[in-house]
């Protein structure tokens, strides 16, 4: 009892201590801090009390030894094995008890042990834990080894972990320390460049919606190539996770690693593992950062004078001589004679009018980790704020901007129920609140990049009402919104941002696991059985919205100041409200309303659930039998597992999956390695007879450097390992579900129709993958090198047959017809040097190259070779190319050159196309497979850094090669859809004096599709719509200073303080036009600009 009281006192004291730190540190939001700490400490203390329950091995008051504890002291020092520096804050625990301590700033500790001898567990985040036997009264020196060095590193594989040294599959992994260095606001961007063979494509900078697309080893199917993503072994969406809660992200690439996922592993597997508690005193880490986001690239501003001058050229080209802009107007555009004229003849830079210099971000994370004999815990709370890039007016208190708040939470608890039974409970998730201007209507982003700056001002400043009074509303004052548009396609983007409508969405994800692990050593040593139940739910709710529309006004300039009848008043009111009627206008009061469940927009069971699904939940069961044992030099691991998954997506019929998995790994003396995997998975898509697919794989490895002859012959090479894997993985991805059933459906009028005809023999798509890997380490890993060569043959790929003729009168469900081959190489190189002056510097690089070819895609038999999909990469684009120097330069040219449009509409300076099949006409069959892919075949990264006395600097360059982008017509054409707008791509246009330009002579056509010549062009028109976007960018920069001062430790009990600054996408080299970001796949109707991140942060541990 006495002891218990003391325990409590201790805790209370500690609590006070923590809160006092918060007060000392004014940089923090004190309230939040207290709240979080209270919560965490309460959890910890609850756990501590639990550990005092009878039946667990802890210090029991009724047993002896209270005094002895005081006498049996062990002292020691903990250092970093590599640098020799003292480590502060390292957890020291007596195994089997709750007794423990932390090292001080000098890495020293002293600890009372319950007996004469004990086993100490020494653990520190980022290092491999150690156990040592100690005797009372002695002093020990411990060297901890950093986890990311190769020795002893554990790699997460499917349904388990393996030691890296005995691994035979192609797996690459990134750990927490590397992840948290990134300034990216989304974890999917933080892995960019850090995993060989992984392509990430960032698409948008919209707060809360800025995740990257991830592709492993390139495209491998036309049905979608997204990899399977697992979080703690269950299929989950990881993009909104806080990097601080992630222990590692592991990417499984070859057959031996992915075969256990059977049907789902064909496109690679990404396994995200969250952090777990270790046996130690509670260790608490707080990190916080604030930063700014700046658009990476924005189109350059082209003034109205240039635009309208080019419009005159275009109008003359199109014989619209009566509609030329006058010299007077052009002069006013160039130098407005008054501030009113500057509104009448505006020259607007929409990016200036609409965007701020930067968008703010705030990031915070607090986590507590530790463990006792009974429970180990990792608890974290995270917060992210992304602010608005856009300037928006304050109107009636509404909040129309873009912003995103995200709260991440996680508690991972492992309870040792008995000596052999462990119960784990994980609860994690996030709550995101996203606010967006209501841009759901068509063309908003297109307007942002494309609306003319020549026709109306962004808004009417306050003074306009003074100079031009509104006769109908004499009391009116202040700023007024201006005309919303002058065409059906392009709106005033300032209005769109300020019209008063917005949507606020709350998105919540909850992941839960309950795992029971029972050791069965009594039955067979090394045997254990594990059961797991997991649920995920995804929920999206429109919490607040407004569809308000503020009035917009135009000024009829002809009425301004006109007083024909001489009564001293202007005759007609120049102010005209859009939609004006004769009735007096009272603005409707501003209103906003709570919304409903966000409507589901697609999403299938084949891809990870996305936020667009209003409500998704799934239930996952897993039962496995594990065996792990070592007999002398033989180490055997075995796994038998079965699982089931039921996924409910909105109102769709539930998706079902089931699998049986087996694996045996064998290791002889860490020299000869072998692995056999089996995946046996079932899919609802196939008839019962074809339902289950059997996917075997095997791998062998030989660690030559462990052989004595090698050690003798090549002593400087500390590592040489050769591994080879071969096997099958599957995919059931198809364009519809239940391929084996033929059915009849009811149309909108109640009649019955036959749906696509069934394919009763449909079965699994099979990917045969081979991978040869070589790993080399030289001079004790001063220099390390690994290379993977891979080859993949996909067959029986499901595809909708293309050779069906119209005679059939129906279509067929997918048939197993397609074939694709793919091969590639991945290289990782690292050089890591520690100098005598304790300067550590390193440089490393990775390169992934892959190439795929369609072998068969059911091309119609008589298709010309160049139009067949077979023999070409997946997603190849068919486009056209210009002939000669690209343009029609003479009347002869116009008459002699075939053109897709009639020659009456052609003018000099129009495109001159190549008649690819030489049939005298230019038509769609002259489109041929053009060079370049939107998914770059070559991805590389080079990074380097140095650390010295607490300073830490690193840089990472990342690049794509062979990448192309397609431009939507509005960025390539002049005056697209009648909008008075040119882009920088148009400026260097053909004239007789400029015979070697980059752009067609200007055209103006107000119709939907623009000039006739343009309407015909495909999205892959080389060098115009289809542009090379190779890039190399400084993806990440990081500078940190680690302060380990005794002063801090003494005053604030802070064991470690880190101050850092980091940034992403700092600068970019690319042949692409300067104003477009080369990373995105295409420029369609517009996009939220991609953003750089710059952060300043601090992190400290207690």
């Amino acid at each position, binding site marked *: 009892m006495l002891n218990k009281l003391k325990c409590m006192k201790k805790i209370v004291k500690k609590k006070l201590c923590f809160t006092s730190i918060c007060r000392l540190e004014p940089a923090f939001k004190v309230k939040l801090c207290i709240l979080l700490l209270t919560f965490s400490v309460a959890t910890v203390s609850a756990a501590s009390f639990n550990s005092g329950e009878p039946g667990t091995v802890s210090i029991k008051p009724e047993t002896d030894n209270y005094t002895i504890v005081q006498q049996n002291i062990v002292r020691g020092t903990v250092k970093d094995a590599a640098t020799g520096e003292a480590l502060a804050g390292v957890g020291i625990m007596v195994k089997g008890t709750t007794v423990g301590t932390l090292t001080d700033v000098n890495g020293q500790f002293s600890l009372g042990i319950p007996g004469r001898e004990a086993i100490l567990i020494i653990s520190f985040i980022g290092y491999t834990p150690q156990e040592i036997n100690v005797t009372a009264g002695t002093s020990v020196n411990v060297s901890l080894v950093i986890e990311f060095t190769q020795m002893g590193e554990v790699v997460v594989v499917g349904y388990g972990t393996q030691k890296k040294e005995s691994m035979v599959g192609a797996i690459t992994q990134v750990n927490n320390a590397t992840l948290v260095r990134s300034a990216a606001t989304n974890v999917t961007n933080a892995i960019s460049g850090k995993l060989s063979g992984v392509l990430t494509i960032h698409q948008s900078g919209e707060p809360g919606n800025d995740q990257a697309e991830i592709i492993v080893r390139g495209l491998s199917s036309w049905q979608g190539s997204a990899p399977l993503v697992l979080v703690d072994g269950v299929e989950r969406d990881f993009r909104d996770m806080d990097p601080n809660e992630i222990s590692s992200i592991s990417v499984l690439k070859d057959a031996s690693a992915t075969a256990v996922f059977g049907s789902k592993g064909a496109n690679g597997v990404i396994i995200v593992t969250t952090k777990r508690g270790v046996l130690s005193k509670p260790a608490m880490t707080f990190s916080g950062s604030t930063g700014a986001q700046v658009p990476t690239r924005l189109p350059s501003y082209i003034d109205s004078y240039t635009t309208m001058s080019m419009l005159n050229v275009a109008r003359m080209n199109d014989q619209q001589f009566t509609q030329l802009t006058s010299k007077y107007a052009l002069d006013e555009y160039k130098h407005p004679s008054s501030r009113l004229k500057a509104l009448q003849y505006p020259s607007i830079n929409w990016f200036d009018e609409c965007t701020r210099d930067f968008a703010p971000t705030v990031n915070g994370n607090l986590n507590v980790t530790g463990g006792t004999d009974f429970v180990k815990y990792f608890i974290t709370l995270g917060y992210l704020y992304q602010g608005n890039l856009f300037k928006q007016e304050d109107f009636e208190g509404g909040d129309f901007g873009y912003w995103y708040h995200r709260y991440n939470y996680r508690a991972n608890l492992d309870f040792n129920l008995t000596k052999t039974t462990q119960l784990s409970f994980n609860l994690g998730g996030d709550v995101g609140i996203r606010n967006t201007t209501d841009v759901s209507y068509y063309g908003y982003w297109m307007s942002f990049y494309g609306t003319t700056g020549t026709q109306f001002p962004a808004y009417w400043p306050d003074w306009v009402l003074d100079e031009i009074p509104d006769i109908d509303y004499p009391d009116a004052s202040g700023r007024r919104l201006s005309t919303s548009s002058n065409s059906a396609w392009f709106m005033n983007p300032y209005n769109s941002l300020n019209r008063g409508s917005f949507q606020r969405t709350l998105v919540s994800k909850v992941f839960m696991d309950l795992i029971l692990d029972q050791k069965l050593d009594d039955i067979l040593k090394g045997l254990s059985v594990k059961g797991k139940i997991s649920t995920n739910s995804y929920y999206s709710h429109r919490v607040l919205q407004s569809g308000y529309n503020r009035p917009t006004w135009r000024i009829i300039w002809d009425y301004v100041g006109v007083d024909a009848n001489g009564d001293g008043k202007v005759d007609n009111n120049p102010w005209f409200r859009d939609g004006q009627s004769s009735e007096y206008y009272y603005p409707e009061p501003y209103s906003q309303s709570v919304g409903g469940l966000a409507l589901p927009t697609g999403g299938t069971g084949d891809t990870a659930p996305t936020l667009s699904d209003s409500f998704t939940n799934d239930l996952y069961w897993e039962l496995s039998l594990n065996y792990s044992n070592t007999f002398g030099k033989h180490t055997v691991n075995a796994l038998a597992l079965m699982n089931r998954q039921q996924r409910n997506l909105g109102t769709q019929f539930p998706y079902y999956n089931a699998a049986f998995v087996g694996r045996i790994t064998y290791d002889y003396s860490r020299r000869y390695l072998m692995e056999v995997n089996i995946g046996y998975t079932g899919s609802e898509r196939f008839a019962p007879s074809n339902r289950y697919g059997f996917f075997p794989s095997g791998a062998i490895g030989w660690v030559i450097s462990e052989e004595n002859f090698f050690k003798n012959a090549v002593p400087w090479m500390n590592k040489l390992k050769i591994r080879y894997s071969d096997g099958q993985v599957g995919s059931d991805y198809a364009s519809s579900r239940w391929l084996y059933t033929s059915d009849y459906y009811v149309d909108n009028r109640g009649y019955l129709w036959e749906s696509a005809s069934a394919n009763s023999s449909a079965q699994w798509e099979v990917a045969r993958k081979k991978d040869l890997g070589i790993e080399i380490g030289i001079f004790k890993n001063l220099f390390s090198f690994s290379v993977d060569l891979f080859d993949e043959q996909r067959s029986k790929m499901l595809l909708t047959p293309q050779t069906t003729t119209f005679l059939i009168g129906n279509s067929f469900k997918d048939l197993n017809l397609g074939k694709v081959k793919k091969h590639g190489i991945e290289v990782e190189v690292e050089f890591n040097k520690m100098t005598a002056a304790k300067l550590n510097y390193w440089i490393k690089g990775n390169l992934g190259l892959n190439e795929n070819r369609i072998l068969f895609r059911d091309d119609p038999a*008589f298709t010309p070779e160049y139009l067949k999909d077979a023999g070409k990469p997946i997603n190849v684009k068919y486009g056209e190319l210009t002939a000669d120097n690209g343009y029609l330069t003479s009347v002869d040219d116009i008459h002699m050159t075939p053109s897709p449009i009639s020659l009456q509409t052609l003018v000099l300076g129009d495109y001159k196309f190549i008649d690819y099949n030489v049939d005298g006409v230019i038509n769609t069959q002259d489109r041929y497979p053009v060079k370049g892919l939107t998914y770059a075949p070559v991805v590389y990264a080079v990074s380097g850094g140095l650390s010295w006395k607490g300073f830490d600097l690193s840089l990472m360059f990342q690049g794509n090669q062979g990448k192309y982008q397609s431009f939507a017509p509005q960025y390539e054409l002049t005056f697209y859809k009648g909008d008075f707008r040119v882009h920088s791509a148009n400026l260097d246009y053909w004239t007789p004096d400029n015979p070697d330009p980059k752009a067609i002579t200007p055209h103006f056509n107000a119709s939907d599709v623009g000039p006739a010549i343009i309407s015909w062009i495909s999205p892959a028109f080389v060098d115009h719509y289809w542009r090379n976007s190779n890039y190399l960018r400084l993806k990440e920069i990081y500078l940190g200073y680690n302060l380990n001062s005794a002063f801090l430790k003494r005053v604030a009990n802070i064991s470690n303080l880190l101050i850092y600054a980091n940034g992403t996408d700092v600068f970019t080299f690319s042949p692409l036009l300067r104003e477009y970001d080369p990373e995105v796949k295409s420029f369609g109707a517009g996009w939220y600009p991609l953003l750089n991140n710059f952060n300043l942060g601090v992190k400290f541990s207690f």
Partner: protein
Amino acid sequence: MKKYIILLFWIGLITLFFSSCEKYLDKAPISTFTPEEVFSNFGNIHLYFDAVYKGQPTRQSSTNDDENLQTSYPLYIDGGPRKFSIDQLTDLTVGGRIREDQPIRLGTMGTNLYIFYDDVLQRPQLTTMFRIIRKCNTLLENIGNIKDAPTQEDIYDLIAQAHFVRAYAHYDLFRFWGPMPYIDKVIGPYDQWDIPRLSKYETCKAIANDFDTAYTFFAKAGKIRRDNPTVGGVGHLDNPDMFRPNGVAAKAFISRMLLYGASPLNNAHGAKDWEDAAKASWEAIQLAEQNGYFLLSAENYKRNWVGSNYSDEAIWAYAYAEHYGRGIDYTNQMLGYMLTGYFSGRTDWCADCPTQSCIDRFETKWGDALNTPEDREAATTAGNYNEQDPFVNRDPRFYIDILYNQAPVIGYEKANIYWEDVGGTIVLQDLIKPSWVGITYTGYFQRKWWGDQSVKNNIRPFYCAPIIRLAELYLNYAEAANEAYGPNAPAPGATLTAVQAINVIRQRIGQADVQSKYTGSKEAFRDRIKNERIVELCFETHYFFDERRWMDAPKWMAAPNMGVDIQKVPVSAEYPAGFKYTRKLVQADHQTAWKDAMYYFPFYPNDYFKMRAFDMSINPYW
């Protein structure tokens, strides 16, 4: 003990897990139906088959979008949101707006093919007809599974309709895309998908044979006619099944198919083919008249199209008002395709404007031909025609079919299609004022399908679109009999000569008999038969196919398209009507052109790569 309890627990859990394993993935939704459920139930099989008349398989949100037989019916093609008629693809009429029809009539199909191919918003006939053929074949293969048909006759009726519809779908494909293989079975995933075409004549013959099979089953089912043929009798023309074809229609279509087969474009056996066509046409006329079909009187002539859902002349027809969802705005829909927005107060409409050559095909009321300058010269000399007062004393059908300058219009008094010089300023009347979209560029509008409704005469008349009507059978007979036996000899077993058959059509409307100068020879009379057919069946989607099967299209399409310029002038001896009529060329972008590829529609580029047995060279890309 404890460890055994744990072991038992796990064994139990595993057993539980496996026990439900077998069925875990056998779950599939029950919102759709199995073939057994569809074909064993008579009600379901009707829902399955009637889709060919009214269904919408791709479930478009707009109820106006059809993918069924309606897409081929005359009024569907010409009405609705489609904004141009099949006639506008020919030299017969010109669109009041430049739309997709214009490149097609100029010989550039280009991407406009989607309109007829597979765009459900338009007239997706290629995909729809093959889908329908598959439906008919599926029904015929499953007909034995029906368990609860009320009577055997109901089964026969279904079989008859399946054969009829299958034949009709092939016919529709034949007329647009040329010869076809005759698809009489369901094509499966492992069958040959590239099937050789029959010859042109064989295609017609195969279609006619299937119609004949349909007739046999219609007869067995007692569905030679679907309503009570007694005039005014109960249910007359009011039978809910009127939208379905009947036995007479089957025979009538045999007449049309054999006539098509005998025509110059498709003829395989010379006069023999014409003889067969004449025989079939005579049989069809006999069968129709025995079953109470008759030519409507002159007073009721217009009810063939406007004023009723069905008529006793229409053997098989499409009641426009019966169409799903069209009840509310069909008046506007009708106005929308053939008259300027002036009458509807709208600015987004199109107009269907007959060319001068169409107008010239309407004879004087005494039967003088006006087709050529020589014809008009002769008529003028005879005192029967005046180019400056051209709209008096014409064939009575002229006043029904054509909206001409000064034609009476309810609510507007007269159609003013002219311009006037007022003190040096040109003043355009509303019907040619460009501010109304869809004005006439020829000086005429078509009136046949118009019920005189307008913003000033807000009525909503019924429309009947005859798919085949009795008058056509007389014309078919006359054309075939003239070719086989000359103008003045009846076909064996028939009681009418070709000339008499033509005069039957003219007498019913009050037009004079064909003048004897035209009936001297087969060749001379052939032109008058063609002219008669164009006038009687104008704007009923025959012209496009007729000028092709006659192989007159190269001549007619290449000829300049003319219209008339009408200036209001004081009444004088020279201008007795007070208007000056000057023939003029329609502007260049409203002209037609011809190349032989235009005999048939092409296919999508990708389809050319799929087939060789199916001879794609018949349909060159244009």
